[in-house]
């Protein structure tokens, strides 16, 4: 079940109309840009959680 976390980046990035907007800005970046960039560390984190759980399960 924990592997389902790996599907979240697909969902988060495939729903393009949700993030194809300007506001709110962050450090001068429109939402479209910082939202997608934020998925980079987030995906790493989700993958790490899955990795940890799978290792513990052996």
């Amino acid at each position, binding site marked *: 079940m924990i*592997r389902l976390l*790996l*599907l979240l*980046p*697909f969902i988060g*990035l*495939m729903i*393009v*109309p949700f993030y*194809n*907007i*300007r506001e709110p*800005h962050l*450090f*001068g*970046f*429109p939402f*479209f*840009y910082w939202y*997608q*960039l934020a*998925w*980079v*560390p987030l*995906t*790493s984190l*989700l*993958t*790490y959680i*899955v*990795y940890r759980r799978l290792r513990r399960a052996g």
Partner: protein
Amino acid sequence: MLANVDSAAFAVFLALFILVTGMGFVASRWRKPETLAHLDEWGLGGRKFGTWITWFLVGGDFYTAYTVIAVPALVYAVGAYGFFALPYTIIVYPFVFAVMPVLWKVAKERGYVTAGDVVRGAYGSRGLELAVAATGVLATMPYIALQLIGMEVAIKALGLHGEIPLVLAFLVLALYTYSSGLRAPALIAFVKDIMIYIVVIAAIAIVPSKLGGYGAIFTAADAAFAAKGSGGILLSPAQIVPYASLALGSALAAFMYPHTLTGIFASSGGNTIRKNAMLLPAYTLLLGLLALLGYMGHAAGLKLASNNDVVPELFKSLFPSWFAGFAFAAIAIGALVPAAVMSIGAANLFTRNFWKVWVDPKVTPAGEAKVAKITSMLVKVGALLAILLMPTQFALDLQLLGGLWILQTLPALVFGLYLNWFSSTALLAGWAVGLAGGSWLAWSDGLKPLHTIDFGMGPVALYTGLLALALNIVVAVVVNLVLKRAPQERLSREAA
């Protein structure tokens, strides 16, 4: 030839190029095995690359020199749409995490070197093996040619004109790949990636401060697109489905390519691959910021002859010449690593899945290594000739088709890892229909990556490769169902 050359930039460029060339030859003694005359050693570096080497190697051959040039160029030209590379290189890693360790394990246990080997092992079909191998070689050739375009842009930005510098650089690359195999790009990848990181970090830290900050950069780009009447810093409604489908299709295709698979097979284990799936997104962050250089081009008010010049011109106009030379060297060296791994991947395929199967079944491991070395040389010469003799657009069009083609090998390569249901005949039929149908669609659309279809809710443009993959899978399922219904016939064919 040297009249327009800035001496500081050129000196830095040349020094780094010589350093890397030396490393390429020394690499044959790095982590030295008893013999390099074995395909596992020449073509996979002994399958012992740990987390760090794999990170540099896969990062170095996945994020190529052409990426550094072309992604900002696309963003400069069309805006937000050019950013599809960002979601693409994010969602690729959960896929790598889930699938590639399984593939690695099968390959290690049975001594497979290529995708063709895996398919032959899973289905025992020479036809399917040949289909997968030939697709891999065909898809890789134009990709190598693109690296040359990247290198050409960097060399030209340095002020060197004519074809001789490119030919020389390539000759050097061909020679050390021949002698050191995968160890050469693996070792050079360290230098290349550190240089690229320095260049990009300098650019994203310093350029905005010269152009008034990121807010000003987005505003300037927005104004430039509005003045031009096309493109924009957000997607138009018609671009939304193409954006998502290009990202998804490219992500599924990315690790079907021989060069990326070579990086996977060369790693020391499934755990190394999983750790890399967590660590490689660092490059994606870099890529996303690099793409913004396209907007910085607008903010800096550059007037360009070609969109591909946006990165070099930005460095030339905003940095001291020695650092511009460093940046151009990073791009040119950035072309060497993927070009070497690509030619090795293609050579491994030719050797294992064509030469050994159809020409010389009794070839020794040393013989295999020799055939692969010569093939890697020929592949590179072919790519060089293609760039020198044919219009650049030709390589770009072929590269587009190559992505579509390589995607059609996914069912054959991946489905067998999880299911024991598909027969090789069904997968071969799916591959053939996907490849031919997809190529025909792309051709009839004037070699554009998108095909417009109407599901009854108005026309939608989709990535043609993804459409062809769907066709491929449907045909494979249907053919398999038909074959299962005629078990008598199937049994008798298998016995024959």
